[in-house]
């Protein structure tokens, strides 16, 4: 039985990671996407850096992810802070925020595009910002809520009775105690936004982000530069998510 489980686990891991592995391997193959493997080279990475279309898309994605990250972090802190209190409609509001996770992305993106059209809002990189924030916010709120330990409320109460006003309590108690959670939220929001495609794709117009650009190029043909880019993005995302996990879980 145990042996069977081991085999199952091995197959499962291979199934998840083999595609990424093959992508990585072929990104270093001078023969490109053809088998057999010719020789190791950084050719495609150089090509990638020389491709203005791809590099511009990377730059746009980073910009959008950065702004999304800041907005999401601030908003999820504020939401989680408020959701700790008992008030009428608390659960309703909570679920309303969390809805962003369950709505199919493509539907949401399309709906927003139509909505923009009605309002006469032009497609651009920043037109995708609200959609990105709505996508990342529920995750941010959930991480923040997990970080708001009930003990923190007692610390806040203690600080109040010692003469601390709200700003002092934020600065001296909440910020230092929640710092790992806040940073974790920020990094997770960044990663989610950087990788987001389906929600934003109808809103970007000609300002392709990197996932959008990859989709556009893939519909013509898969080039090895994309493999190089895929490898870089994967490594970058894993690093960020690893850091997030470490920051959030370190306390417990």
């Amino acid at each position, binding site marked *: 039985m145990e042996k069977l489980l081991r085999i199952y686990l091995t197959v499962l891991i291979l199934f998840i990671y083999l595609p990424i592995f093959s992508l990585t391997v072929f990104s270093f193959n001078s023969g490109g996407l053809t088998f057999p493997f010719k020789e190791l080279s950084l050719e495609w990475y150089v090509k990638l850096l020389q491709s203005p279309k791809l590099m511009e898309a990377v730059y746009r994605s980073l910009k959008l992810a950065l702004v999304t990250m800041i907005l999401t972090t601030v908003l999820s802190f504020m939401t989680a802070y408020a959701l700790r209190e008992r008030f009428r409609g608390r659960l309703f509001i909570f679920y309303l925020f969390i809805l962003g996770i369950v709505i199919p992305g493509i539907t949401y993106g399309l709906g927003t595009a139509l909505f923009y059209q009605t309002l006469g809002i032009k497609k651009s990189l920043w037109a995708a910002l609200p959609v990105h924030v709505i996508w990342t916010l529920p995750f941010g709120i959930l991480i923040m809520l997990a970080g708001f330990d009930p003990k923190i409320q*007692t*610390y806040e*109460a203690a*600080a*109040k*009775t*010692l*003469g601390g006003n709200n700003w002092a309590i934020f600065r001296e108690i909440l910020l230092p105690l929640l710092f790992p959670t806040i940073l974790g939220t920020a990094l997770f929001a960044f990663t989610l936004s950087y990788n987001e495609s389906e929600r934003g794709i109808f809103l970007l117009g000609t300002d392709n982000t990197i996932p959008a650009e990859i989709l556009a190029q893939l519909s013509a043909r898969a080039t090895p530069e994309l493999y190089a880019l895929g490898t870089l993005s994967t490594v970058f995302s894993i690093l960020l998510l690893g850091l997030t996990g470490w920051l959030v879980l370190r306390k417990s």
Partner: protein
Amino acid sequence: MAQSEVIVQNLTKKYDSVTAVDNISFTVEKGSFCVLLGPSGCGKTTVLKIIAGLLEPTEGAIFIHGEDVREVPTYRRNISMVFQDFALFPHKTVEENVEFGLRMRKMGEAERKRKVQAILEVVGISELRKRYPAQLSGGQQQRVALARSLVVEPAVLLLDEPLGSLDYRLQKQLEVEIKRLHRELKMTFIYVSHDLSQAFAMADQIILMNRGRIEQMGKPEEIYYRPRSVFVAGFLGDVNLIPVQVKGFDRNRIILDAGVGDVYAPQQEENPSPGEEVFLAVHAESISLEREAEVCENRLEGMLLEEIFQGSQIIYTLQLKNKQEIKVLKQSNSGRVPGRIGSPVPIGWKLEDSILLLAPHSKRRVKDGI
């Protein structure tokens, strides 16, 4: 006439359908030690939090130092609070914790350092000032919590079961220290506790609460010797509660039927009517046994069930013919009753030791005390 430091006026707190605090009023004199006492869930902590401004009352008013604080936020009320689980800031050292309130008051650094040093010496932990809370024992953490609240010199110090999580010996030791601090600092203390002996040891004034209402308030001796309800008598623990029925009156006495014979209580300003069912409360230490019992006005016979030697005192449990148990407390050096478990023993107490409880809130013997 002493000045009133805290006035609580018609205070009510409701949560949805539950009334946690039900229209209570009391006054705490300046410089006094007031204990809010009662079983868990009686609303005592709610009252404390409302005084602190951490909870909003549904109705009623709070005055601190003559000022109506309804619209005053916690950080501008001249109070500080010691929490049950200490609530020390885990990311700050002992010194930084204690300094916090002074920094909030924008005090200069030199004066701050001096005050922190002084208060740490008062509570006896100056050598721990660079440590973090996680590196301290429970007793040390409690001292830091006290120092942190005392250093800001509040008009009123609120303490929410501050010894609840410590072991018994440390509790007793810190009780004495808190009492000494109160005497030396001349501050007003409002202390929440469910522990009767703690309240007796420390309080100038006890406010005994039950189910959101005040059952009785007064000095510890008043509460102990003149309980005014079945709940209070039950809460005291060492008081026997005997259900009786009023039979009639003679001279200065009320004649009561205890089911196993007649007993007597002094007549009241407002006597119960014949036939009424009431309770008789008798302190365990007021009851005499054997030969001493024979000279008392109240005499019954019990069977000795149990004898527990406790060092300075002995606790006897006796049973009346109707299965009602009677607890008797005797100094162990006053001569022991021969240990004849199962044999009949005369029981007696003086007329003035009979406390008649006219309007019991419930007929059951209240056990949800300590």
